């Protein structure tokens, strides 16, 4: 992962951005959930992320079957956004560190959204059950609204 792109991704996570995660089954049916507490490893081109599993029970079986994943990270105040595609290398239980990162992310995300006029009950969308994944990043794309949305970074 290129340094500037990794830095931008880290910044988006640090600001409590909204993270949508999509997987697909072997028949190419998409399944979607939300992601929290992302950690970028620029040197090795990896992204560690916790996924809500109470949203869509099919996400984990998809990842176990084919590993294909896309993650869109969008800043809730500026709408600057990027998408990461890749393959999940590892799936596991979340640790106490993961749990702390999830809590911090949910708190920042909620604060951002509340500033935009929504009630704090938005935190409800985080769900209650999570799984940790390690993603080998293949490509990053611009996802900010505009003519360059979808172009590779």
């Amino acid at each position: 992962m290129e340094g500037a792109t990794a830095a931008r991704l880290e910044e988006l996570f640090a600001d409590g951005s909204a993270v949508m995660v999509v997987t697909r089954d072997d028949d190419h049916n998409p399944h979607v959930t939300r992601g929290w507490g992302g950690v970028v490893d620029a040197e090795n081109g990896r992204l560690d992320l916790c996924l809500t599993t109470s949203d869509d029970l099919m996400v984990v079986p998809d990842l176990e079957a084919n590993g294909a994943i896309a993650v869109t990270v969008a800043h809730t105040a500026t709408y600057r956004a990027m998408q990461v595609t890749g393959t999940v290398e590892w799936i596991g239980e979340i640790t106490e560190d993961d749990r702390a990162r999830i809590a911090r992310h949910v708190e920042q995300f909620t604060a951002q959204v509340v500033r935009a006029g929504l009630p704090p009950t938005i935190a409800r969308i985080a769900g209650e059950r999570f799984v940790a994944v390690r993603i080998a990043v293949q490509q990053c794309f611009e996802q900010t609204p505009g003519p360059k949305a979808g172009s590779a970074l």
Partner: protein
Amino acid sequence: MTEPSIPLASIERAFEGVIPASISTCAPDGTPNVSYLSVVRRVDDERVAITNQFFSKTTRNLRNDPRFLLRVVDPVTMEQYDLRGKYLHTEASGPMFDSMRVQLDAVAAQTGMTGTFRLRGIDVLRVDRCTRVGDAPPATAPAASNEQPLAALGILVRRLAGSGDLAEATRVVCESLEDLFGFGHSMVLLADETTERLFAVAAHGYAEGHVGAEIAFGEGLIGIAAQRRQMVRVTALARSRRMASAVEGADLQELPLRGLPDAQSLIAAPMLLQGRLVGVLYLDAAEVGAFDARAAEVVEVVAGHLAVTIALLEAGGSDPARREPAPRPSKATTLKAVLHDEDGSLFVDGDYIIRGIPGRILGRMLTEHIASGRTTFTNKELRLDRSIGLPIGNDNLEARLLVLRRRLEEKACGIAVERVGRGRIELVLGGPVELLAQS
């Protein structure tokens, strides 16, 4: 056992655009894709439509493999819903396209982004299945502010039918929108189709200074509603503004809002009668999501009734209700009025009062009063005086007089104008007056 699909009509709030929806698709090589959407509109119980401003990966994926997964969120309960189905077709014209385009164009006009946010088409999607996300028990929504909108609407219409003149009709509408529906900020603007401008004749819930304000057709949210003759409804203006400003190269030249400066929710409903634009009924609120689809239906009906009422009042004239004479505005010293010929702006003792046609009407009455001592004037003579600049035909004279009357009341400058009978008005002065005409 599989849960039954949830009817889309039962989750209407999730399509209000308060919380961004997302759409997930899959490329032919198996790469999944997820994008945020600016607008998802429920078409009926089987179809939704999404806007397509920039040809994107989502668009390409849907053309190759029509299957999609939409995630929408109810902004009140925060319940999430997944909608699965297939892309049907794209529309680049027609009523649904126009209706969705006007919303984007109105925000673009307000934020100075016209041209950047051009709607290329709307993708129509068939929803095969809608399910609630998560395994927690469903959240219950707080009770709506008015559970019986038809009954409340009936009361409003009855009150409006009893209005004797334009002043009363506009006041009744604004006050009833607040006491029956909780919509505390509203404005009635009438259209001058000759100059293609709107002018505010009534404003409720705002600080002073709104009556008399003018807006060109096509200018900002309200002007777009007038120009396109379509309702504009925005549920989260800050979100739309942020999305517009995120576009690369965006240079927002935002227009000031005409009502609440920090409004998040807005409705501008054209008042139409037999194809003629009578005006625009405008409501706003500082809260996100204040006007849902049901509120929009109410406002549309009220705007229609107000259009008919105004037309009937114009056609039949009206006798002003008998009432006690207005207290004479008192000023101990001579009132010094200045009229600027160029734009009809009129000042009293250095304070700006009004401009345009109402300013010229007052200037004409003051000139006559100073010359002859007259205080009573007729609509007919004002219509015949071409220097005032009233358009021939539908001249909105009653509305101009109402604007003048309300501005003088607001400014309490020692001058008032009263209706004293059908087609007759009286100039009421609190003291001697001088008028200086400046070109």
